[in-house]
């Protein structure tokens, strides 16, 4: 019984994916790329970094990277908390 429900849910979900894959825009041509063109044009002058991706990661979207480092820090504290009783 559980298998049937899961099977139906899986098929519905898979059809979601296929429909989204089909009418997503063609692979190589981004229809709108206004934000990224701004980054490519202005990254060097505003942040001074040659690597546009790093200038996005640390300057334009720096708060994401702070959240990112916090995710890693949470995972490490969680791991240490989980195995705190282990004395090698």
């Amino acid at each position, binding site marked *: 019984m559980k298998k049937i429900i899961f099977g139906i849910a899986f098929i519905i979900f898979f059809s979601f994916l296929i429909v989204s894959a089909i009418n997503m825009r063609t692979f190589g041509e981004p229809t709108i790329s206004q934000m990224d063109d701004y980054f490519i044009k202005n990254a*060097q002058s505003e942040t001074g970094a040659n690597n546009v*991706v*790093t200038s996005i990661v640390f300057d334009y979207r720096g*708060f994401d990277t702070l959240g990112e*480092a916090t995710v890693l820090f949470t995972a490490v504290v969680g791991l240490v908390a989980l195995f705190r009783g282990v004395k090698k």
Partner: protein
Amino acid sequence: MKEMSRIVKTVTNFVYGFIIVFGFYIIAHGHLTPGGGFQGGAVVGSAFALLLVSYGSLNSKKFLEKDIFSLFEGFGLILFIVLGFSGLGITFFYNFLANSGGWFGNAAVIGVNPGDMNTGGVIPLMNIAVGLEVLSAFGVIIITMARGAEFTKKKENS
């Protein structure tokens, strides 16, 4: 985890220094060449994984103790958030060093250029902070999970 054979250990002794230096290279040149804090930290983390696998336990090399890693991790993160706070005069993550002529401050030549280390404002500092944090996070994860695997396995056959 039991140790690997003699050959693997000697090769590791020889190689792990270079991997760590290469990792720091990627961290330091994050704003010029492809890479940055996370990727460089992962490379140095792979050096620790190599040591763990070949020696069976990471702290056979005395300086790789678990609480050194958690100390480094704390410092890396605090440096990163202090860099964020220091731009607070204007906004939280403001790049106050960019194009300011000071440390890491001179403006990059627009368009294709050979890449000058002294550009990028706060970005190289943040790269170093995140790189430090990621490499120590990898160290702690590897040691804790290896020791945890020992601990959980022991229960089963004891």
